[in-house]
């Protein structure tokens, strides 16, 4: 079908204006801020940038961020896979409720999420005394940060896989079953290959959010320099001390990560778009 149907497309002038306005909007709202991160980070030159990055507190923050991501991403990946398998390959009462629950963390304010964990594990929390008695620290310590990160990144893998696996149906798995394959084999050899790009996509988003989470972690971490500051928190600390160059330096690392995420995501969509869920994120 010709794309030049004069009757059913806008005039060239209209098209041009619409495109320019769309580009201007995106440039104004998205591109300028992104560019400013790098512009501010290197304002005082590369040496200053490097110095900011290798500063001990910054290094500790980087390490903490990586650690937290390394723990929370696999957990949510495995659990997301389990949830997707349970929900799409079986029928049971309460399935819809389960699916809806998975969506809940998306609509909770991160600050509220962090507060909920404080109420559980803080000094005055439900488990507060027990934890104190056993000298275990969750709130204002690394475990608390992991938990807060876990809840805010909970939905990504599951939300990506569930529509995809629903669209793919159960026939291949059932065929494998009739051929005598045990559960693990079915999952590894039949299901997993079909969902690998969707899974990668979900993991990518999970990781981006895990490394970038701010609100929930801010509440539960206690902001203890060198110990419980993740990179986003470190950015805030530096910014509030008016140490803008350093703040933007650390921020630029995160922005770089975001760009890598976007690039990989675009590549995935381009090459394997048909194997990703069409659901809106």
């Amino acid at each position: 079908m010709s794309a030049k149907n004069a009757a059913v497309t806008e005039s060239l002038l209209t098209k041009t204006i619409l495109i320019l306005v769309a580009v201007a909007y995106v440039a104004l709202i998205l591109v300028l801020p992104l560019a400013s991160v790098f512009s501010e980070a290197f304002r005082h030159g590369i040496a200053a940038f490097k110095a900011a990055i290798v500063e001990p507190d910054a290094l500790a923050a980087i390490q903490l961020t990586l650690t937290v991501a390394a723990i929370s991403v696999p957990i949510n990946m495995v659990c997301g896979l389990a949830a997707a398998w349970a929900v799409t390959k079986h029928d049971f009462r309460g399935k819809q409720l389960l699916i809806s629950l998975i969506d809940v963390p998306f609509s909770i304010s991160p600050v509220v999420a962090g507060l909920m964990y404080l109420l559980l594990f803080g000094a005055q929390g439900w488990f507060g005394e027990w934890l104190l008695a056993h000298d275990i620290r969750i709130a204002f310590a690394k475990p608390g940060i992991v938990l807060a990160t876990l809840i805010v990144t909970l939905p990504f893998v599951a939300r990506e896989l569930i529509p995809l696996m629903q669209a793919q149906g159960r026939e291949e798995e059932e065929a494998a079953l009739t051929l005598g394959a045990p559960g693990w084999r079915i999952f590894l050899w039949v299901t997993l290959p079909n969902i690998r790009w969707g899974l990668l996509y979900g993991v990518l988003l999970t990781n981006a959010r895990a490394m970038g989470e701010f609100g929930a972690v801010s509440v539960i971490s206690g902001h203890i320099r060198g110990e419980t500051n993740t990179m986003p928190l470190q950015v805030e600390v530096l910014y509030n001390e008016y140490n803008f160059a350093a703040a933007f330096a650390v921020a630029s690392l995160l922005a770089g990560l975001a760009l890598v995420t976007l690039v990989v995501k675009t590549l995935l969509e381009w090459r394997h778009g048909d194997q990703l869920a069409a659901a809106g994120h």
Partner: protein
Amino acid sequence: MTITVRNIVKGFGNYPALRSVSLDIEDGAFVALLGPSGSGKTTLLRIIAGLETAESGQILFGGEDVTDRAPQDRGIGFVFQNYALFRHMTVEHNIAFGLEVMKRGQRPASNAIKARVEELLELVQLPGYGKRYPSQLSGGQRQRVALARALAREPSILLLDEPFGALDAKVRRELREALREIHDRVGLTSIFVTHDYEEAFALADKVAILGQGKIEQFDTPEAVQQHPANDYVREFLS
């Protein structure tokens, strides 16, 4: 309204869909464009409608050159293969659409529109279906609504793109008869596209057989059957 197609040429990239096609259609005739897929018949229909533009050649309605005119201004009615009904509007709003989008000066009064809708529903044998939604209708019923909608503006030309393609055999036969009846009653010049020669011969006054972008023969069904113009036509009919 007579239709004259003169030396229409159309290609898609390197693919020549129509290679200098010409056709003369008399006022009130019921013409079938017949051919296998890829023969260019739908492309020709869409060019006549103004939904595609030809690279060269002309289209004349009643002697007037409409080649550069937008489909809104050609006074045609078009029935799509997949109905293209407006899902969020009731049947009566679908049918009335062509009248409601007219400019103030030309638009009929709302009770005139209502009356016209009723009249058309009677014509397509769906009286009382006005308040239903397309999703509540069967395929055959939807096609009737599409037909009624195309006729609402009293077009001088009716164009149908494989109108029964998506329907099962029984419904096709019923609608075939209904369409012929409507054509005879209203007296419109009509062109419909099909790949089914039985249908073409049953319905049309004259049949244009297309093959690979050219018209191989244009004549009455009897003439085509008894005196096929060349091997291509002969093979197509067997």
